């Protein structure tokens, strides 16, 4: 368990306090731990799934790697295939797509998907391939080979 400097100092003063203070302190600390555990459990969602200002949905994304490829899979149900724009640099994939209908969440209407995905390895964007099926877009980007040959003596 991590402890701030302030907490550590108060810990040292422990002997001077009565038992109720100690219990209260423990209770407070326990609550903080629980809050932290649960906030990571239910809260870290919104920013990644919506851009309310731009009325864009951020698609659910899965990134995997093989020895020679980075594979990015994006869940974009209701996306219109013709509208999909894909761009890639050596380390980022950018996607934008229009939906075939308007979707409302908390009184905000969304019509587009957009996301930039940071890639886990450097790739050759020119040789990337993409497929779109059942509302799922899969992009395969070959990794850039940046090493030098090692000969065996």
């Amino acid at each position: 368990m991590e402890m701030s400097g302030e907490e550590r100092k108060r810990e040292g003063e422990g002997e001077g306090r009565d038992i109720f203070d100690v219990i209260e302190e423990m209770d407070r600390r326990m609550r903080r731990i629980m809050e932290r555990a649960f906030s990571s459990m239910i809260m870290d969602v919104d920013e990644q799934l919506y851009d309310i200002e731009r009325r864009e949905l951020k698609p659910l994304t899965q990134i995997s790697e093989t020895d020679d490829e980075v594979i990015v899979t994006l869940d974009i149900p209701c996306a219109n295939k013709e509208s999909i724009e894909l761009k890639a640099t050596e380390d980022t994939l950018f996607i934008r797509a229009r939906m075939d209908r308007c979707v409302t969440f908390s009184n905000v209407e969304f019509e587009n998907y957009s996301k930039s995905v940071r890639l886990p390895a450097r790739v050759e964007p020119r040789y990337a391939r993409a497929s779109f099926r059942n509302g799922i877009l899969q992009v395969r980007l070959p990794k850039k080979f940046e090493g030098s040959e090692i000969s065996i003596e």
Partner: protein
Amino acid sequence: MKVVEYDSIKMESPYIFIGLPDVGLVGSIAVSYMIDSIKMAEIGHVESDLLPPLLLVRNGEVKNPIRLYSNGSNMIALISEMPIHPSILQEFVTSIAEWFKRVNPRLVVSITGVPVQNRLNIDKPKVFYIATDEHASSLMRSTHALVFEEGILFGAYAAILKACMSRDIPTLTLFTQSHLNFPDPFASIEALEVLNKALNIGIDLNELREEAEMIRIRARELMKQTESMLAEPRLKATPTFYG
């Protein structure tokens, strides 16, 4: 943790269906569709100080995240609209299994997914099952579901299976090939088809097929919340599951 019943439940050995957030939300989507489709009524919820202070508001009505439904005769459904965090899983499973024991079900039917890498290229996901009694096995033999031969179970459904087994509650767990962290209503459809055949419950799946894309969009948030719990090693699938 305890199950709060709105009226005390008197049912002759019901079937209990469980849909918890897990792989591809296969169970959540299947069981909540079942509830809507055969118009089951809310009969209770799970309450505990261990649960985060979370309530849902639907059409102006306040709802608990873990709820129980019934069709009034022989079916009970348990759904959760929040992932069950590993730190409270044991407590949760023990209290619902104790409740099951009291209700004395004919069968507890758990619905979940088994992630397959090539899900994108599978048009008709296969359904595998684990049955812990002869009645459930014979039900499954009348369907196209396949025996889950070998593998490791991990997570909420494994805990439920374990808790039921130790209390002699008969269980059937369905595992449908699915996406790991994308909501997969088409996998839910396959699981419900198997149950339609086995139990003659006549759930009309057309609406689920038509609404699948919208369901995928609506389920994004729950999928995202569930994702972090799926990151742990959970179910090591043997090659049987592929293709």
